[in-house]
């Protein structure tokens, strides 16, 4: 039957694409349980030694913590700025506002190396090299386009008469934004904040350009680990991150259905 052949052909294709996407991620899991001192599959048995190294090493834990709090700050700052920007643009909704919205997205189009070089040149002048503030600022700028895309998508679904109704009923403009607009676009803001956190958490190019010794984020320590020796701890870290991501995703999807 031709239809069934076609069906098999396409479903095989789908599974192959899926495997291509997922297998490289899954391969770190057995590697992280290796009993050898180098990156490779387990030889004589499974071992948790690399997880132990990770949990006992102040360098790794510190880097993890640094990436976390930088990520949270970046998510917070870029979500606030991005949301304010979107609401302003939405209210104006004229030609200039549309142009501003497109300009905001440009950072996504610029190659990260070029952008990082720009940050480097500018941060030297500002004295922000090798400071947490410098990294947070750079990451906020990198995350802003993602926040604006996500928040603006939520805003386009909002009836323009809703803020009008709020003001007609006696709410000032700030009150309208806080009590009516923000609750309506909250899903967009949360998605934007998650995007921003992710952008910051695994950003490496900018960090390599902007930091020397004082700021150690997780991607940078992983990078250093690969440079110095091929340490299976990296696989352990990667496995933990995959597990956390999986957990958050499943939790998030379940929350949405309820």
């Amino acid at each position, binding site marked *: 039957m031709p239809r069934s052949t076609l069906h098999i052909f396409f479903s095989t294709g789908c599974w192959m694409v899926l495997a291509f996407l997922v297998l490289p991620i899954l391969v770190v899991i057995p590697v992280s349980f290796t009993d050898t001192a180098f990156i490779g599959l387990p030889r004589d048995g499974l071992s948790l030694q690399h997880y132990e190294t990770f949990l006992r090493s102040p360098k790794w834990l510190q880097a993890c913590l640094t990436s976390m709090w930088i990520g949270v700050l970046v998510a917070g700052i870029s979500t606030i700025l991005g949301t304010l920007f979107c609401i302003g643009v939405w209210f104006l909704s004229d030609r200039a506002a549309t142009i501003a919205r497109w300009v905001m997205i440009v950072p996504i189009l610029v190659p990260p190396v070029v952008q990082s070089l720009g940050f480097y040149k500018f941060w030297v002048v500002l004295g922000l090299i090798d400071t947490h503030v410098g990294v947070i600022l750079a990451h906020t700028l990198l995350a802003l386009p993602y926040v604006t895309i996500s928040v603006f998508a939520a805003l386009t679904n909002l*009836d323009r*008469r*809703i803020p*009008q*109704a*709020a*003001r*007609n*009923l*006696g*709410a*000032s*403009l700030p*009150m309208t934004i806080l*009590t*009516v607009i923000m*609750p*309506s676009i*909250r899903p967009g803001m949360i998605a934007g904040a998650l995007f921003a956190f992710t952008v910051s958490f695994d950003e490496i190019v900018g960090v390599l350009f902007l930091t020397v010794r004082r700021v150690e984020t997780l991607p940078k320590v992983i990078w250093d680990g690969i440079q110095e020796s091929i340490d299976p701890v990296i696989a352990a870290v990667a496995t933990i991150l995959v597990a956390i991501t999986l957990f958050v995703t499943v939790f998030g999807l379940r929350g949405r259905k309820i």
Partner: protein
Amino acid sequence: MPNPIISVRNAVKTYGKVRALDNVALDIREGEFLTLLGPSGSGKTTLLSAIAGFLSVTSGSIHARGAEITHLPPEKRDFAMVFQGYALFPTMTVAENVGYPLRVRKMPNAERAERVRECLELVQMSGFADRMPHQLSGGQQQRIALARALSFKPDVLLLDEPLSALDKKLRADLQWELKALHDRLGVTFIYVTHDQDEAMSMSDRVIILSDGSVQQEGAPAELYNRPRNKFVASFLGKSNFVPAQIRKQANGTYTAQVAQESFELSAEPEVNIDGKACLAIRPERVRLGLPGLECFAGRIRQISYLGERCLVLVDHEEFGEILISQTTWNASLPPEPNMEISFGWDCKACVPIAEN
């Protein structure tokens, strides 16, 4: 007019070269049910938005109880509005929606809850306080929007085509309710619609707008019986237009000469007419008779049966199409297509209007 609650003076609003409002002036009496009626693009919603404060007029001014409010932000005007599509806050329950104006006015919780209960009762939605807006039907949402607008006891209620999204039967029921609510509360209603039936059935006064300017204003019966121009005559109900010569007689009365027939006019024409004019004649005032009985002869082209009455389209050599509306229950002769008939009307049916 004694002490208008709102007055609009020489309001102009332009978008590029388009004049959405063209020198509009009107006074709104306290407690009246005023309808702004016009086709889409006539400027009626623009005028309402300007009164509500959502857009600023290019020139002219708006006053409330004598004080100028042209540049006052909407939240300072205390005019409640019921929006087309209702604009209920999607993240709030029905009770929170209705209580919103009270919350922004910092009314204490207990008092607010009491007032919300009262308002929901007013629109017969008491059992729905904890629902979300998306769980309600269109008619129910409309009632909640009304309750929300009335909760802070505004002087003026602005309604922007509030019934347009509802089906015909529900719309008719809500028309009666709105009118009853208006009479009970004594709040000034400013109602925007493109539906002439809505305008006629509820309003104390109707203002007909077209192309951004006021065409005519008055009580529904006055507008229907004495339209001033072709636009009003054809927008509010249907009209036949026949060319006529208006003449002043020696005894001071006026006559309209249509073909060979002469009709005496009951009053001096309101509009400035120099000789050539036009008569607007309502279809239900044209009589259909046997050949030779009435003044004009024609041939029936088409008939449309509507139950309580039927519409007959007659071709006349000089006037073109003449529409006649005839009650069916006592029709003297059953009209049929291609029938040669005569028709006519009496003097009272003639409304002289400007040829525009």
